[in-house]
């Protein structure tokens, strides 16, 4: 176990990830349950974003060596996701009739979705286990 992943700055990171896991899940759930056909692509991406936040939160809390790798993958997917969806939603608004967490690079959430994966990757890198020489 490496509890370091969830202590210090990691503790703050977990708190922010938990908030986004909750809000993205709730948003995706409401969107898909009430009017899925209105914007299927946007709603599926909402669900993907929610899943990524949930996996990242759990991986950071578990704080084991294996979960560090899971966190690394999910945070990378998150960064690629927010950049791709951000770019697409700006370039082709017609494809996104309804917003996701990642639309406009997370503008609706104070751009936190854009900054969060960068901080996450920095934190995971700084907590890399040292290899025996």
């Amino acid at each position, binding site marked *: 176990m490496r509890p370091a992943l969830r*202590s*210090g*700055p*990691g*503790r*703050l990171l*977990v*708190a*922010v990830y*938990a*908030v986004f896991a*909750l809000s993205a899940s*709730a948003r995706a759930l*409401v969107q898909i349950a009430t009017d899925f056909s209105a914007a299927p692509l946007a709603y599926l991406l909402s669900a993907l974003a929610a899943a990524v936040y949930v996996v990242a939160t759990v991986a950071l809390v578990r704080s084991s060596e294996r979960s560090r790798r899971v966190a690394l993958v999910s945070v990378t997917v998150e960064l690629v996701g927010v950049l791709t969806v951000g770019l697409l939603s700006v370039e082709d608004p017609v494809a996104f009739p309804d917003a996701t967490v990642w639309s406009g690079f997370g503008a609706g959430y104070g751009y936190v979705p854009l900054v969060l994966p960068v901080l996450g990757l920095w934190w995971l890198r700084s907590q890399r286990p040292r290899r025996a020489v």
Partner: protein
Amino acid sequence: MLAPLALLLGALSLALAVWSLVGAVRAARPSGGQLLLAAVLEAAILVQAVIATVLVVTGTRPLSTATFAGYLLTIVLLLPAGVFWGLADRSRWGNGVLAVTAVTTAVLVLRLEQIWNG
């Protein structure tokens, strides 16, 4: 939902956010005063939640009652969860967690007001 009480909730959340942020910058851990403020805020949230529930049950309800109920449940549980998570860290980062929790609470207060007023 009582509008004056919502205003009070917003003010208390922002006060807790600023207090926690200052604590984090000063590398202090959360103080007893902050916990007291968090307790007062949570009590006020519970009062608002009871008022809102009574109003909804007696027929005065927002357009989307389900969404409103989801936000209401979240705001009631968020602060205790954030305090629990933040206090476990005896460093400035505990204050960081409290600041994030307080800002999120303020945002939820705003969203609740928006949903309630349609």
